């Protein structure tokens, strides 16, 4: 046998790769399923157990040990290397995810468990037992340390999960191919060639996957988001990206942040409860336009008097994701499973024009910011005029309307548009750290007093009597500008133009 020391280097690489796959699986599952303690614990347990199974199975390999070792390396390279992309792809179909996850972890664990026993048997003729055990196991644990340091510090932030997985798969395949040279004397000539061809094929497959992985979550996208992307998919309507970082999950639509789990309760409490406070009596029928993440629903369902909530959101992929993705379901407290909630997937503009739904007591309007013409129409006098006949007497409406600090004209143009449509409007604002200063409109079709307190007996994390009342105050830099603003109409789309100009200043 050629250079035994080089075989020991292989041990380090094998050990590093093995632990990386384990960490990858645990990370992906905790991103996707949430509850990282459980996920890490389960993955480590299953993985170590599988390694034990592998070690046990090694006794059934009698002949051609060196050749089998190379085969196993290549198998680990393929399955381990493709594990993260596979899990991300499966993730779109959440119901199979657990099965695929644990099967993958078990297979990788078993294969990795075979590696060290086989390698020790290859080396057993070169060294005495004492020496062998001490060196191989020591290096095995060194590899584990290398992996555990590299993973959080370098790999996840720099490469992302998909590329880390594929790169280590290639490293594993490299070890396999390299071993065909190191172990040349003990493998037959013909088999040597077959093994090298196999190794080459594996490298090619992983390289193609590495290139393709970029279309899964593009490099550009990885650069765009600070946190790791755990879900990225284009629906017919928009690009949906969910990220997971130290502060929790975030949802982006077309690259625009919709919520961050660590402070979304501020946004959604401010969105929902003022309308309930302004409504006299017990609201029964609620309309939500937009709000496909279900977080407004969670706040709405705190009111016992509610008999039905109609949620109209454009994108079925979004509402389905909010229902079935554990991380989102946990956040919206499984609101979509509440029997009072009825989801319609439609463009709210078209829906309002055609629906024969009975009038609503409260309407919560939570669309993305008006950054294009298709969204801009949802803030026009025409839209609010379509809404009016769908409002019961005394109904209260809330509209989210971007930041009055960054997009001051946009915000006040929405107020003007609501007034031009016949609403009495009470603008308010609050602070949502991940967004900044955020603005809303509280509106009714009759004159009304600003509500002073949040509704009683509702469990709130953010709003109390003081913050509630203060939301209706505007600072000098967010108050109504003195210049005359345009009403946003279908035939002028003034808001989209204000918005574009105002946000462009801060985005460059």
């Amino acid at each position, binding site marked *: 046998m050629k250079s035994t020391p080089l075989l020991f280097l292989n041990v380090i690489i094998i050990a590093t790769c093995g632990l990386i796959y384990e960490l990858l699986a645990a990370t992906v599952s905790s991103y996707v399923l949430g509850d990282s303690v459980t996920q890490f614990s389960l993955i480590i347990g299953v993985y170590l157990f599988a390694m034990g199974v592998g070690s046990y199975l090694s006794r059934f390999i009698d002949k051609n040990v060196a050749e089998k070792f190379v085969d196993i390396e290549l198998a680990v390279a393929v399955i381990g290397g493709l594990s993260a992309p596979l899990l991300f792809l499966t993730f779109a179909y959440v119901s199979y995810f657990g099965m695929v996850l644990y099967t993958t972890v078990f297979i990788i664990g078993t294969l990795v468990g075979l590696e060290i026993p086989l390698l020790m048997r290859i080396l057993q003729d070169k060294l005495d037992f004492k020496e062998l055990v001490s060196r191989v196991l020591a290096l095995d644990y060194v590899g584990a340390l290398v992996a555990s340091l590299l993973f959080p510090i370098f790999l996840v932030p720099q490469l992302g999960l998909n590329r880390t997985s594929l790169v280590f798969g290639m490293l594993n395949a490299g070890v396999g191919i390299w071993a065909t040279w190191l172990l040349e004397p003990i493998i037959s000539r013909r088999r040597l060639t077959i093994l090298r061809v196999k190794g080459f094929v594996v490298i090619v497959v992983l390289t193609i996957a590495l290139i393709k992985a970029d279309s899964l979550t593009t490099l550009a996208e990885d650069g765009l988001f600070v946190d790791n992307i755990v879900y990225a998919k284009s629906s*017919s*309507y928009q690009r949906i990206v969910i990220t997971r970082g130290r502060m929790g999950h975030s949802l982006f639509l077309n690259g625009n942040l919709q919520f961050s789990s660590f402070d979304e309760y501020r946004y959604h409490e401010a969105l929902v409860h003022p309308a309930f406070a302004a409504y006299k009596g017990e609201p029964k029928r609620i309309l939500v336009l937009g709000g496909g993440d279900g977080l407004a629903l969670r706040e709405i369902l705190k009111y016992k008097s509610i008999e039905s909530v109609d949620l109209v959101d*454009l994108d079925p992929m979004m509402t389905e994701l909010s229902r079935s993705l554990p991380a989102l379901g946990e956040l919206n407290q499984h609101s979509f499973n509440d029997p009072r909630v009825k989801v319609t997937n439609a*463009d709210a*503009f*078209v829906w309002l*024009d055609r629906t024969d739904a009975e009038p609503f007591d409260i309407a919560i309007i939570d669309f993305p910011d008006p950054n*294009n*013409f*298709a969204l801009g*129409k949802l803030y*026009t*006098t*025409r839209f609010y*005029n379509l809404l009016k006949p769908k409002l019961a007497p005394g109904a209260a409406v809330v509209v989210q309307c971007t930041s009055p600090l960054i997009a001051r004209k946009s915000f006040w143009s929405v107020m003007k548009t609501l007034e031009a449509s016949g609403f009495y409007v009470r603008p308010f604002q609050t602070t949502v750290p991940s967004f900044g200063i955020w603005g809303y409109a509280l509106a009714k079709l009759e004159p009304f007093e600003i509500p002073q307190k949040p509704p009683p007996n509702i469990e709130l994390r953010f709003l109390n009597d003081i913050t509630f009342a203060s939301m209706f105050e505007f600072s000098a830099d967010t108050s109504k500008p003195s210049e005359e603003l345009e009403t946003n*109409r*279908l*035939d*002028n*789309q003034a808001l989209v133009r204000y918005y574009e100009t105002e946000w462009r200043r801060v985005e460059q």
Partner: protein
Amino acid sequence: MTLSRRELLSTFLGAPIAFAACRNGTMRRFPEGQIVGQSEALGHVLRENRTFEVPPDNWESKKVAIVGAGVAGLAAAWQLEREGFNDIVVLELEKTAGGTSLSSKGDPVGYPWAAHYLPVPFRENTELISLIEEMGLVEGRDAGGDIVVKEQYLCRDPEERVFYKGRWYDGLYLHVGESEDDKRQFVEFQRQIDHWVNWRDPAGRRAFVVPSVTCSNDAEVTALDKISFADWMHQHGLTSERLLWYCDYACRDDYGLKLDQTSAWAGLFYFCSRVRTSGVESQPFITFPEGNGRFVDHFLSRIGEHVRRSFMAVSIVPNDKGVDVICLNDGVVRGVHCEKIIFASPVFTAPYLIRGFRDDPPFAASEFQHNAWFVANLLLKDRPKQRFPKDFPMAWDNVLYESPSLGYVTATHQSGIDYGPTVLTYYYPMCHEEGGRTKLFNYEWRDLADVCLTDVARPHPDIYELTTRLDIMRWGHAMISPRPGFIHSGIREKAMKPYRNIHFAHTDLSGIALFEEAFYHGLRAAREVLTIETPRP
């Protein structure tokens, strides 16, 4: 016609586009579709000089027969009905009424086959306003007394975008890459337009206003009709390529003529007639997914019972008692005795239809010349993908700078349906060719579909996969051509006069093809019919 694909595409789209299209090779998958509408073969029956005998049982009597159910004919019937005069019949050669305001029903929305908008009329145009008020399009009046049209019927922003060198830009005039000289010339052009917008003759009449009969006939204005719009631009030192393109586009869009084929009077009419005073935006557009088909439907809801479809007038015979109309209806010859006729067909057909016209022509009908168009409706299962993030998004009117076509209009735009299936209406005026009409009718569906798809595929390479159906309508006589010297030649005034109980009513009589003009002439003819005593033997 045997023509290579490259020859075909060169003829319609110019050599560079044809070359590029043929170079990138294989013919793509074509959607289903066919040539629809327009009974061209039927129309040519007229030229055969056949004689038609009406069986005695197939005669009926009406006070007034209206020949042609285009906008002028329908408006005339609508006016007569409004005046309580309903002993009328409207005879239409085609299976559907509407003329060049034809539309089709569809899902999610209907779509037009030609005319597709109406600028909000000035308050002075009270009759047209009474129509749109009757249709429930008006919300009220502003402080100045102008009508306020309901928001949902005013063209939704963004109105236009233009495709230039691979990218889409906001608006119709191409601002990107403008030189200082381009900018200066554009300002100068606007100044000229403003001059004519504010111009009044000694009687206080505007130079250009709708309906065009109310325009000033001052020599300073009518002189503009003697030269082409291209000459006028040249005389004013306007040579900027993009400005010339902009004005050429305007001529092709409104008249189906090129800049040098259009009278300067007509060119300026396009820019000036819908602007109240300088510095004010031009009148907004009223539009519907199905275009002006909405107006047709409204007329039909009022007078539909009087309309006979597939009734081709083949002979109009003036006599002592009035006029007889002989029609061909599915091979059966039928006749109508009537006191008066409103002739609401294209004016050039008068000599073929009216007995005795040729022997002693009251005017030279052949001076009324038309151009040919083809219009394609592309039914899409989804929207074309935006190729570049900075591209201006889909607008109502989507114009291709480098193409001789007019681009396409998106039917769903006005109804706010921004996702999923839609219909694109593609317009192509045959003004770039001599004998365009004859050529147009020699092309098959596949040729014209290839032209349309090749053109639209430049901004939207995915159009082949998205289009589920592509139907084409060929308009042999789409629009009257306001060539230099036609409008103020005096011939129109002659044609507006009744001829032996036949009253002409058609947009042709204005020399420009507009809904408002057709409407005006329909109402004028209806009034004449009501006020001029019928000579009784």
